[in-house]
């Protein structure tokens, strides 16, 4: 009499139980800290090179920067990812001799509010301000505060640009892409060359 083995799949799965336990643990972790997780999508070294190169396409940058281009790298207090990106961007930019053809210095500053940042930009004569992750809730206020200032804003998080950060970076199809908010660029007296705009995704 042939003996037919039981059909595949009729085993009560230990794997399912084990997976459920791990999932529960993970869910608890998630609930504990389901906060903003911005994407740093472009490798920092490449992003720094792009940032430095794009500034050469900013026609108002030499006048704005003067002899020494000052770049504020803004980090958010108690936001580890923000501090990490600011620090890594500082190191990456230091390895580049000139940005926009001009010697430069980077200053890491802690974000103390949009208005305060606007004051700081004015006081320090910063030519550019760079934001790492952590500013998703602040971008609108920052855009408003820097309106009319003579400064280029850039962010490592692509989602910042539709909200008014002038320059952003993304990776699509495995290649870096430039994002430009043209309207805000004009408001901040940033004049980008047409050949750059042809290469960028434009927001208005």
């Amino acid at each position, binding site marked *: 009499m042939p003996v*037919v*083995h039981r059909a*595949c799949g009729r085993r009560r799965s230990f794997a399912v139980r084990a997976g459920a336990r791990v999932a529960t643990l993970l869910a608890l972790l998630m609930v504990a800290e*389901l*906060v903003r*997780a911005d994407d740093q999508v*472009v490798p920092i070294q490449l992003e720094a090179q792009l940032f430095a190169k794009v500034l050469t396409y900013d026609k108002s940058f030499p006048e704005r920067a003067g002899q020494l281009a000052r770049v504020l790298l803004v980090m958010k207090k108690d936001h580890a990812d923000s501090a990490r990106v600011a620090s*890594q961007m500082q190191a990456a930019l230091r390895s580049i001799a000139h940005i926009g053809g001009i010697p430069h210095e980077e200053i890491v500053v802690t974000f103390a509010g949009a208005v305060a940042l606007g004051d700081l930009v004015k006081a320090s004569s910063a030519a550019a301000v760079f934001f790492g992750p952590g500013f998703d809730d602040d971008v609108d206020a920052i855009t408003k505060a820097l309106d009319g200032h003579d400064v280029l804003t850039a962010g490592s998080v692509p989602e910042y640009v539709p909200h008014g950060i002038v320059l952003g970076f993304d990776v699509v199809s*495995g290649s*870096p892409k430039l994002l430009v908010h043209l309207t805000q660029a004009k408001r901040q007296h940033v004049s980008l060359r047409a050949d750059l705009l042809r290469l960028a995704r434009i927001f208005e």
Partner: protein
Amino acid sequence: MMPFERSRLLTRLLRATAFGIALLGASEARADEGMDLTTLLSEKVVTTASKTAETSTNAPAMTSLMTAEDMQRYGIHTVDEAIAFLSLGGFSSDNLYNPEIGARGVLIPGDQGAHMLVLVDGHAVNEPLHGAANLGRGLGIPIEIVDHIELILGPGSVLYGSNAMLGVINIVTKRGRSYSGVHVVAETEIGKSYRVGASFGASTKLLNAPFQIMSGFEFYRQDGPTFDFGPQGVVDDLFSMQPMRFSRTGPATGIWGGAATKTHYAMVPAGYMRLEWGKVTLNVHASTFKRAAPYSSQYINVISDFNDPENYQIDRVLRGDLTYRTQLTTHAGFTARIYGDSTDRRTYADYSRRLACRFSVTTCRDTDEGLSRWAGSELQGSLDWWNDGKAVTLLGVDGRYRYAQGRSDLLDYDTGAPLRSSTAVIDSPHSMLAAYLQQTAHPFPWLAFNGGVRLDSDPRFDPVLSPRVATTINVWEGGALKVTYAEAFRAPTFFESDALIPNALLRRNSLAPERVRSVEGSLEQKFGGNRVVFGVFRSWWKDLVEKYVFSQAQKDELVASGDLGIGYVLGPVAEYRNISSIDNFGFNAGWEGVTGAGRFHYGTNVTGAIARRVAPGTGTAQPIVVAPQFFGNARVAYDFEGGLPTLGLAAHFTGNRIADRAFDGNFTPFPVAPPQLELRATASGPIVKGLSYRVGANYAFAGQGPYVVGVAQQAYTWHQSAELVPVDRFRVTVGLSYALFQ
């Protein structure tokens, strides 16, 4: 042609090439600072080789990246097509059933993809029962939602474990923010197949956290084309003493072949979803892949009836993973991932030959069922020692519980009653644990180092160590020299290690994992929008698991030792063993670029490889079957823009390929598939706002592939030559897509 003339021709060719390169470089150089920006924007950002975003130049392995734009331009429908037409170092081989993938001159026929690790958004899809991974239509990922495909050449177990012998393929899907709106597509290969699908993407904020979703669904149906096979005649059925029967109905003719009108079909309903919310990412993939081959061969429909649509295989897949990423401190990051997979495969074959069935029924129905389920968790920490990216340590552990079940039954086709007890019964649960460590260092802007090692523990064999060391030196502006040493392994599949068919497939000794180690060097030069790469490689494979077929003398010994019943001493008896090794070396070269204000795209890749298989006892090295020793691709496309079409022309070519049964089939003449050149012309563009089209024509110049088909899998006195699998030579594809709410 005289040698002198040949030399002069070669010189002219080299000069013309050099002039062309200089012209392209110069044309970009005139763009002033745009040249550098174009170069930067042409960088390839990859994530697979070291589990972190980096440029392909700095990646610790030769990486080929196939983009969504290129797949659209050149009419690519599947991952195996992308590899054939666009990749460097990879190739695919179509068997009219489920395409096989190879790299650098090595392909293991019938391995079902087990020697190439396949990832979808980083999730390994090779199942443990057969090691199988589908890369054709059966993958079940709509091509519209694929952002890019990364092909990492060479051993890649250091971060991913088993199966990464030939390399790693990672299919990366689009993000919700870059794929907004609803997209509907309908496409047909005229007279052969159709596909309908819908996908959507969106990004917003949910509970104060960013939320992105991207999802795609499709239904694919293929029916035909019809191929003619045979006729192949064989001896009378020794059991029925009548002509062999290859069909349930009609007279027994002893002839295999005719028009396969009902057995070349496939059907794939599939869906994929990727959801990102705050620090959490959820991926879910489900698909079914049913297909039938229009022939029988060594690996497909082995002894089945001809043109029987009920000979088919069906795979069902449900997989998912949940990932949580966080930055603990400015220096330390943490990722936790849980994953679970369920795959099952059922294979049905009807055969009416009494010699094959051996029971007094009209037709036997062979059913093979296999089920694999696994779940696990991977924890990964990273430490950036000085928070400047110059020294980063990655440490991970991966614990997994998995089990596989399988059985093979023989039924009376007419009654469904079992004819014998189940065989090849597999019921194997076990746990696995792995740990890996990777250290990257960029001490100077011109130097990058990547070293790592992974330890995999599997209860079936001793722990396996898989190291990798790679160094990249930026030797001059735009030029990078890379040297890599890497090892990889493949754990025996559950079928290989656990299947037992009394008196037919023995299981007497445990199997060791297959191993490969390789060393390679490459030089890459970037200028303007161009990237030129040249590399050499050498790899050594050992302990390859193969089915060893016993000789008559060995079967007599098995009978004497009680491992084989006396009644089976004349039949085929085999067992899986670590048998062979492969020695493989060669070169890769590629050139790709873009010019003409980003409108003119071009690229070409060439690989030359020597691969020799050595089996103990024979002492002789044989070329690898099915795999070409020379292959590559080339492509050009122009985007007219402004509502005008994009025109793309792509080609892939392979040299001679030795047929799979060449060395054990004793055929005359020696069966070799001819060189193949396949051309694909594609036009795509908008019709009206939201509505776009893509039309294409595909033509293959050679009519045969490297697989011996039919009942004559070995030469007989009355059947000396091999019949090779036909090629679907001409296809026309028309597709429409509509996007709304973008």
